[in-house]
């Protein structure tokens, strides 16, 4: 088991380097001279002095050959130095650290909402295969995967915030709210709409996975045996079928973690939620290369880690694979 974990972890390293090369190439094909940009943003501090510019070029090692530049960059990234954000004038790492918790709150809530909706619907739709409910679910699943998430979000704002005035339009907190429970309730009001939209967008595909996976298990001999023995339907589905159907479901749901971060990018922008996604969007809009690239690298690492988690979960929950590995 430990060997397998280690092996999977080591496999990530070359992929990490390959991703870093791709991202580095993208970063280096960005138009514009970074020094020129610095001067444009701060013309008084950086007069157009050729001698000074030359010194700066050497200081920032802008004329190094590309491979050398790559290693310099990689070294600083690994040691946690992601450079400065030209927009916020603060270290990128601090910005990410301050925004990441907000994104985590949003994505985890969305993830839970999505799961809470998708699980019962998926199970019911598999158990009542080809029923009216199942057919309706199928159509709704198609509708779900075809909905542009930002449009869904905008419509939700128009209905719940503008017309019904139940929930705030955007942001994360009301200014001047005090007291633990008041703050908690206030935050919750801001959280509900973006989290629900982000979670519900994912429901459609999850319902399909859960349905397919459960149907496959319901077709197995041991389920038929359990029915034949007279075990009540409820117990067969929960104890025998669902337990086994959960294996692929868990994997898929862990694999979808990066999609939440990608989806959060749009949803955070629509709702002005101060998270990583919005940070990255602002970085792209204001050509803050350093920040944009760091966010991208960060999201790529999250993707790698969630793929790893999915793999490990798969092995953990399925004893058959574990035994197979040991025997091999």
């Amino acid at each position, binding site marked *: 088991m430990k060997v397998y974990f280690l092996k999977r972890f080591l496999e990530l390293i070359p992929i990490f380097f390959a991703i870093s090369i791709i991202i580095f190439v993208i970063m280096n094909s960005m138009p514009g001279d970074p020094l020129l940009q610095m001067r444009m943003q701060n013309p008084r501090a950086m007069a157009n002095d050729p001698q000074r510019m030359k010194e700066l070029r050497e200081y920032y090692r802008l004329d190094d050959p590309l491979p050398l530049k790559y290693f310099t960059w990689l070294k600083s990234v690994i040691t946690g130095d992601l450079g400065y954000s030209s927009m916020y004038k603060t270290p990128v790492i601090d910005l990410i650290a301050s925004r990441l918790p907000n994104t985590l709150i949003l994505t985890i809530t969305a993830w839970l909402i999505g799961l809470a909706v998708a699980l019962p619907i998926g199970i019911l739709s598999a158990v009542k295969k080809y029923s009216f409910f199942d057919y309706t679910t199928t159509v709704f699943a198609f509708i779900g995967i075809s909905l542009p998430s930002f449009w869904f979000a905008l419509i939700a704002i128009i209905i719940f915030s503008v017309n019904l005035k139940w929930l705030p339009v955007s942001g994360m907190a009301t200014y001047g709210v005090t007291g633990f429970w008041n703050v908690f309730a206030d935050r919750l009001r801001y959280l509900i709409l973006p989290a629900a939209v982000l979670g519900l967008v994912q429901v459609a595909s999850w319902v399909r996975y859960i349905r397919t996976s459960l149907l496959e298990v319901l077709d197995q001999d041991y389920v038929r045996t359990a029915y034949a023995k007279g075990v009540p339907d409820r117990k067969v589905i929960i104890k025998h079928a669902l337990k086994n159907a959960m294996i692929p479901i868990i994997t898929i749901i862990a694999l979808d973690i990066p999609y939440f971060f990608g989806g959060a990018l749009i949803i955070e922008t629509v709702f002005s939620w101060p998270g990583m996604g919005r940070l990255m*969007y602002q970085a792209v809009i204001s050509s803050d290369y350093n920040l944009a690239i760091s966010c991208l690298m960060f999201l790529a690492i999250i993707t790698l880690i969630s793929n790893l988690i999915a793999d490990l979960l798969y092995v953990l929950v399925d004893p058959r694979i574990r035994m197979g590995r040991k025997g091999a």
Partner: protein
Amino acid sequence: MPKLFYRKKLEELEEKARPIHINSYWQLVWVKFRSHKLAMFGAVVLIIVVAFTIFGPLFVKVGYEDMDFSSLFKPPLSPGHPLGTDELGHDVLVRIMYGGRISLFVGLASSIITTLVGTLIGLLSGFYGGLIDRLLMRFVDVMLSIPMFPILLTLTLVFGSGIMNIILVLTVFGWMGVARLVRGLVLSIRETEYVMSARAMGVRSARIILRHVLPNVIPIVIVSATLNMSYAILSESSLSYLGLGIQPPMPSWGNMLQKAMNYILGTATGANPWWLTFFPGFFIFLTVLSVNFLGDGLRDALDPKFVSES
């Protein structure tokens, strides 16, 4: 009365049971596709939307940039403006037609290019195997582990926005899924008896790929092309919505929504122009939904397993 009912029912059943003469694979595909209700719905809606965007502008006198300052924020069903007008007096219906041309073109073009590139790489990788295969598939792994939407966003920084650049960006980061799918299929086709016998007879590799492998891959490729198209339309509209895709004054369904967001809380006069948000998004949704239905129907209809059964 019941007798008549049963006779009718019987006739219906006989009608259904009457054998259909099928002469070719594509005829079978059509018969199966026709019986898929959702797919037929998707096909019809898609044809209507395409015809509407292509031919619609020919029948109206206003262009997408024509402003009418005497009618700002007119609600839908106003005289002369069936879907209302926006803050500059642009007709929403006209802009949806022109915007649809862009959205559909981007979707179709990037889906076709992506599918061609992906199929080619998948064929090469699966058929030749060995080092080429390992290198290409590792590259696919790497590309797939970069989060899709964030990288699209970043690439618009490099390539800039505009129709061709959006298509380019969607293609560069869109071919991997098809490639992996085709490769897997080719790997199994490569081991079939008919390919082996062709090899034994000394047929050249290029010919084997074209005559034996490609035709078997095409059904899956068509299905994944439709899925790519719906993905491309959604991506383009998301990018345009974020202001990084198609740039105004040229309308696209996505950037119309971006402008609409400025008025989501209502206009200065307190009116709530919901139609600016609703209609462009509804057209994106309707188009993507139809494409997805179509893809599902094609998946069922093109399934080659049924050919071997018949």
